[in-house]
């Protein structure tokens, strides 16, 4: 039987086709939407409940979802849109794929409720292109089931409410996860982020008011309406309501997507993931996807996994992608791989990002090749500082934070490599002691 405290993974316990409509209905699926269709909650009431639940966006920035929904001119007569961000491409993050594969109806119901609340009659789910083989057909089949069962369409179940949901499939570009890059892509253009303001709530898809939310954020909404905002508040901790799906990867015994209450101690999380791989020592954790600052073991081991606690400990909960690194990890190699990613994925619009990410990657490469100098380390931080805050979108910041944080906490590894002609500290003769 399904475990009961699960929000997005409520159907996970079913052995056969957890994604089916029948299984979803049996765990209370579409009951929240039915209440809306019955006129029990109007637009303002839905938005108030989402606000009261304290739900914060799971796409990386943690922005309060109810507040975001309230920015839409919901009663204005023009066309408005809801767009779900299933572009999932922040390195380390893989929970939206699980929602699409295992519980697509929670997303469909969440999209329907949210679209109605904001006065949008049309919603798109932007799914990354690489998901074309399994998550896309699974989501499309669920959509078809929902249409056939009369949960979507025009004048749904005689309510006078119209909501149509369409799938959109991307084609490979991290930048399309940025919400205005995503809108450009949806319009059939290269995914180059837009200047803000105007914000999408005023000028979004095709110039119409639009809200973009992450898959997990939207999939959480039916449970919030069904069980009430207070239930959601009580599941989590102050400032971080509800559950979140932690994607735990790297050097743990049982990597996986675990839906757990926010505020869970990091130690407990590590235990749930089976502990450290091979019983080795923890060196560092990236707690929210590759963009957020790295945390040395000592800074995270006693922390709790919620927005405020991780911020206070010097990083960010980001997407809830927890990348665990043990004592054998070369931090220079990690940072170079991260920097290569941002260099490859920069859309090239802003000079600091386009040029700066290339500098970062090339300098890190020469450190690894044994031709780096100590001055290079200052240059890395200097370049990162010049990118941060100087670009149209946050990809620039995402490229800068790892560099700043790796050099802040693990500078000795970079210095060791420079002093030893490119040899990593973890390959040193006395590596275990290092």
């Amino acid at each position, binding site marked *: 039987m399904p475990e009961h405290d699960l929000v997005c993974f409520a159907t996970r316990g079913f052995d056969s086709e957890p994604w089916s409509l029948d299984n979803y209905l049996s765990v209370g699926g579409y009951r929240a939407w039915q209440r809306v269709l019955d006129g029990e909650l109007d637009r303002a009431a839905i938005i108030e409940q989402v606000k009261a639940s304290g739900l914060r966006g799971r796409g990386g920035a943690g922005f309060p979802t109810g507040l975001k929904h309230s920015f839409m001119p919901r009663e204005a007569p023009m066309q408005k849109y809801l767009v779900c961000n299933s572009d999932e491409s922040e390195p380390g993050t893989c929970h939206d794929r699980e929602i699409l594969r295992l519980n697509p109806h929670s997303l469909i119901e969440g999209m329907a409720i949210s679209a109605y609340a904001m006065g949008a009659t049309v919603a798109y789910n932007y799914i990354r292109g690489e998901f074309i083989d399994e998550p896309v057909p699974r989501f499309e089949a669920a959509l078809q089931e929902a249409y056939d069962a009369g949960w979507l369409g025009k004048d749904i179940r005689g309510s006078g409410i119209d909501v149509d949901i369409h799938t959109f499939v991307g084609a490979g570009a991290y930048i399309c996860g940025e919400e205005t890059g995503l809108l450009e892509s949806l319009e*059939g253009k*290269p995914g180059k982020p837009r200047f803000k303001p105007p914000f999408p709530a005023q000028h979004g898809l095709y110039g119409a008011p639009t809200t973009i939310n992450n898959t997990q954020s939207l999939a959480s909404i039916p449970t919030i309406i069904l069980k009430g905002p207070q239930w959601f508040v009580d599941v989590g901790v102050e400032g971080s309501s509800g559950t979140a799906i932690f994607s735990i990867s790297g050097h743990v015994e049982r*990597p996986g997507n675990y839906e757990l209450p926010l505020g869970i101690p990091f130690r407990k999380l590590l235990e749930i993931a089976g502990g450290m791989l091979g019983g080795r020592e923890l060196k560092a954790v990236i707690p929210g996807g590759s963009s957020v600052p790295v945390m040395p073991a000592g800074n995270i081991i006693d922390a709790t996994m919620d927005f405020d606690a991780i911020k206070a400990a010097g990083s960010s909960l980001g997407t809830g992608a927890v990348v665990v690194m043990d004592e054998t990890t070369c931090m220079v190699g990690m940072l170079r791989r991260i920097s290569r990613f941002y260099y490859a994925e920069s859309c090239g619009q802003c000079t600091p990002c386009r040029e700066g990410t290339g500098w970062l990657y090339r300098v890190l490469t020469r450190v690894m090749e044994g031709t780096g100098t100590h001055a290079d380390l200052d240059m890395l931080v200097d370049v990162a500082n010049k990118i941060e805050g100087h670009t149209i979108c946050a990809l620039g910041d995402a490229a800068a934070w790892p560099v700043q944080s790796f050099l802040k906490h693990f500078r000795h590894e970079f210095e060791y490599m420079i002093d030893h002609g490119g040899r990593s500290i973890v390959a040193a003769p006395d590596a275990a002691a290092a």
Partner: protein
Amino acid sequence: MSARAFTPELSAQVCAEIDRWVGKFPAGRQRSAVLAALHAVQHENGGYLTPELMNAVADYLEMPPIQVYEIATFYSMFETKPVGRHSISVCTNISCMLRGADDIVAHIENRLGIRTGESTPDGRFYLKQEEECLAACCGAPMMMVDHRYYENLTPAAVDEVLDGLD
């Protein structure tokens, strides 16, 4: 839509697929279907796009060809040069790197006798340079072969997948 002249370079099947996508967007916004159109055309053409096919898509969606070329080169899933029949992308991003992705890449390079970014001379395999994390990090190391995901890879598991391809 229906009044539009038939574009000979695109098959009836591809046209039907593009029309299905165009139907999801408001009137006059058919450009939104360009990614779907290029996916369909590339699939039918054995995994890559040609200038003629891109021109045909531009024509069909009433877009300037340059805008279609821009799309084809901006998005990593489109190939604008001939590539091997089976496309292999090994994720080497952080979670996969921590679980041995570089060894998986080396194994495939050795087995196929090519470097990342190349196709085998017999036109069977294309080992794509994949920069992105493919969002299966908890099943690291992983690869995508012809869009299918294979997780928790070992060299033996890779061999099994590749042996099964024509």
